């Protein structure tokens, strides 16, 4: 049998980037810029999203807010799409959905914690319902070392909706060590 060499140091490393986004009605563009660690490239495999919709209970919740994404490779100033597209085209959005309040009544799944609790509150006082995110398109976007993962998001909230909106973005991918770098020798 062939010799098996396990290279723990140089193998690819899973790295998930999570961001909670809050935006108000008509505030349409935000940027999600994540610096890639020195010595690594980053392979973005897929993206998972979830947002609260403030829709009526008898309507499909995820249609209330549209979120368009644009991926940019900064090292080449290259857009990875011709036009920004809806995130629901690459990721089945998990939504706030409809949940039971325990008495048989359905209510919106987003919950704002009002009690003082010993957790950090980077917009973490808002929770979504535990509906699963389902299918995802594999993106395979490759970002080179010393680059920033630049994701530009445009939101469209229909004008009849009130209040602030929250969105969860989870970028799933792998750090890949750049073996040409001296620090790996």
């Amino acid at each position, binding site marked *: *049998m062939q*010799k*098996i060499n*396990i290279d*723990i140091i140089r*193998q*690819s*490393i*899973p*790295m*998930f*980037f*999570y*961001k909670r986004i809050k935006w108000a009605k008509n505030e349409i563009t935000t940027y999600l810029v*994540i610096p890639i660690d020195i010595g690594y490239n980053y392979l973005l*495999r897929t993206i*998972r999203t*979830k947002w609260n919709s403030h829709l009526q209970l008898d309507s499909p919740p995820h249609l209330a807010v549209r979120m368009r994404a644009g991926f940019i490779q900064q090292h080449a100033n290259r857009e990875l799409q011709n036009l920004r597209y809806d995130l629901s085209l690459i990721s089945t959005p*998990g939504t706030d*959905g409809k*949940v*039971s*309040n*325990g*008495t*048989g009544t359905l209510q919106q*799944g987003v*919950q704002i*914690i009002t*009690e003082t*609790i*010993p*957790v*950090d509150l980077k917009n*973490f*006082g808002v*929770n*979504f*319902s*535990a*509906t*699963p*995110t*389902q*299918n995802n398109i594999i993106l395979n976007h490759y970002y080179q070392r010393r680059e920033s993962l630049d994701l530009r998001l445009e939101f469209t909230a229909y004008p009849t909706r009130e209040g602030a909106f929250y969105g*969860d973005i*989870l970028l*799933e991918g*792998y750090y890949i060590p750049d073996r040409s770098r001296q620090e790996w020798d």
Partner: protein
Amino acid sequence: MNMFANVINPDKILKLQNLQYSEKLLLSDTVPAGGQQLASVDISSLGNFYCQYMTGHFETLRVSTDPLPAIDDGISHLRGKLSDGSNQRQLFNDYVPLDLFLSPGRIVSPNDGNLMDLTKTAPGNALFYPQPFVYMFPVNSKILFDVKNDSTYKLKYEILFHGIRLPIASREKYKK
């Protein structure tokens, strides 16, 4: 393997099984209400563990007085951060809500006060896709998972890591 088209060679199969075999590691913990807790699972001295997928579920409860002691509100209260215990390498950049990456996710809890009332108890989710998570956890290390719970009730979660065990002892002769 089509067993009638191929000759089954037990010696060859047993040798291969000693070198690598499928294994699953369960990480299970209960996070206190409004608290934070670090859970870990030992990779042990048996060998490296090459993780390929993970699946998991968690409870969605909050305190209730009627009925006692809690109800399932369907809200995701847990968020966690995964890291490799051998070198403290962070595998998540922040505390990620468990509902974003775990399938099946929400599960029916025995602590739900509405457990016997089928009109009020929401079912747990069905297993969908396992979360791909390819990483080599070194021998003698730990998988660390730091979880925060902002519910008013203690919540249990479980994550199953699906992978391949690579026993060290069986590989000694291949190092030369």
